[in-house]
């Protein structure tokens, strides 16, 4: 069942998908960092 779900999702690991996977992961890490900094600033302003 899991393989078919993956197929439906269209995750084919060709070079382009692999590129997207690697740099997408790095991008998410950066976005989480921005979220935390923003939330900490808002917290500090609130208190």
């Amino acid at each position, binding site marked *: 069942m899991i*393989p078919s779900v993956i197929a439906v999702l269209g995750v084919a690991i060709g070079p382009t998908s692999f590129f997207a996977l690697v740099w997408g992961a790095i991008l998410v890490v950066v976005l989480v960092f921005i979220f*935390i900094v923003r*939330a900490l600033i808002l917290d500090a302003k*609130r208190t």
Partner: protein
Amino acid sequence: MISTAVALTAVILTILAVTAFGLFAARGRVRSVEDYISAHDSAGPGTLTATIIASMMGVWILFSPAEAGAAFGGLPAILGYAIGSAIPLLLFIPVGTRIRAIVPAGHSLTEFAYARFGTGMYLFVLVVSVFYMFIFLAAEMTGIAGALSLVTGIPRWQTALLVGGFALIYTVYGGLVASIVTDTVQTLVLLPLLAVGFGGAVFALGGAGEIHAAAIAADATLLDPTFGSGLKFGVYIAFAILGANLLNQGMWQRVYAADGDSSLRWGFGVAAIAVVPMILLAGLFGIVSTALGLTESGGASIAFFLVVESVFPDWVTLTVVVLAVLLVMSSADTMFNAIASVITADLARLLDRPTQRNLWVGSRVLTGTVGVGSIIIGSQGYSVLELFLTADLLAAALFVPFLAGLYSERLSGAGAVVSGLAGFAVGVTYFPLLRGPIGSIPGLGPLLPAPAFLSAFVGATVASTGGTILAIALWDADIDLSSVDRDIRSLDEPMADGGRNGEENK
């Protein structure tokens, strides 16, 4: 290899900076035992996200995901690891909200287990939870000592003593406050380091296209998301992580630390999103190591560091060293305080009207004892993988009946214990690591099914779930969930008088 002196200097500077910050941040903020082991309603979404990420992401992410990628099935194994790590964090959103509603003044999961189920389940949860957390801690110390020994040549004992010792100093002084504050700073340093370090690593390896081509040439199944053995590994590791994290006191402390249900949702939700790419990126090093032929003669467990050592420029290696130290310190301080808090919260109940000073001294002595034990074990270089998996199996068998107690008024303590034991019994029959002693029992050996981790972990969870459903259906314990917290009291008495007030009361 970067020189030992340069690496040691970077390690010491990192450790000193974190310790100084922890001591400074906690100064004047820990006024009671309550402050030391809990931080009720104090963390907003940013702080909570940061501390959850720092607590969960130990130095293990530089070992296990890469090993999974190299030896247990490539990309699907890594994805299973990543998604499996996110699931318990997502589950903590509804479960954490429920915990805070039922036991608003609580401190630990064992405290809840005792109040909700009684002595039997309490002892079961206590043993499994403390066992798991201590093994986690020992594995972290072993991991960082081994990693730095491999990459920089720093002797194991020096790393274990420095990292563990300094984390212990600020945790003994500042308790959970110091742990959460340093976690926040560690995450703020760790995430950019991770992004820059991994980005630099991809460039150093010739770009994503080069890595892809090398992996396909070496073994195309490494990047096949439907590869069977990788999928099996991914599923079983998800079950293993799920149970263990739901019985992790460090996470329970952070549930209570949230300053409201909204912060809890944001904190655990964003942390769940964050751990997926972190584990994925670390795991890709396992694929790279196989693609480059670095693990042909074994060594999958250190695949990440084999790549670092053989391919990267010194600045990336130094980044990894600092990253590893931050990862281990942020998890170690969480576990030091988590283990101490479980027992301190229980001491408050078990001792006859303990004074603040007794609890205060007890909690710090416990933290120190746990820390010293983990430093000693970490410096020895033991393999703790088998103990880790055994702890995971116990947790996989226990977490369903335990959590069911948050929702069902019908589930009795005996029903929960029997369900957990049933799950463990089923898990053990499949568990490869206990096949030797179990199989040697006369008459039992031939009856046992083929050993497999997937069957063991899934079987343990499914059997305990079935047992829990049966226990709820057949018996009605008639527990009033609204009064579970009647005996759970705050430990919050100011220490301005050094605890004399508590002694007078006694």
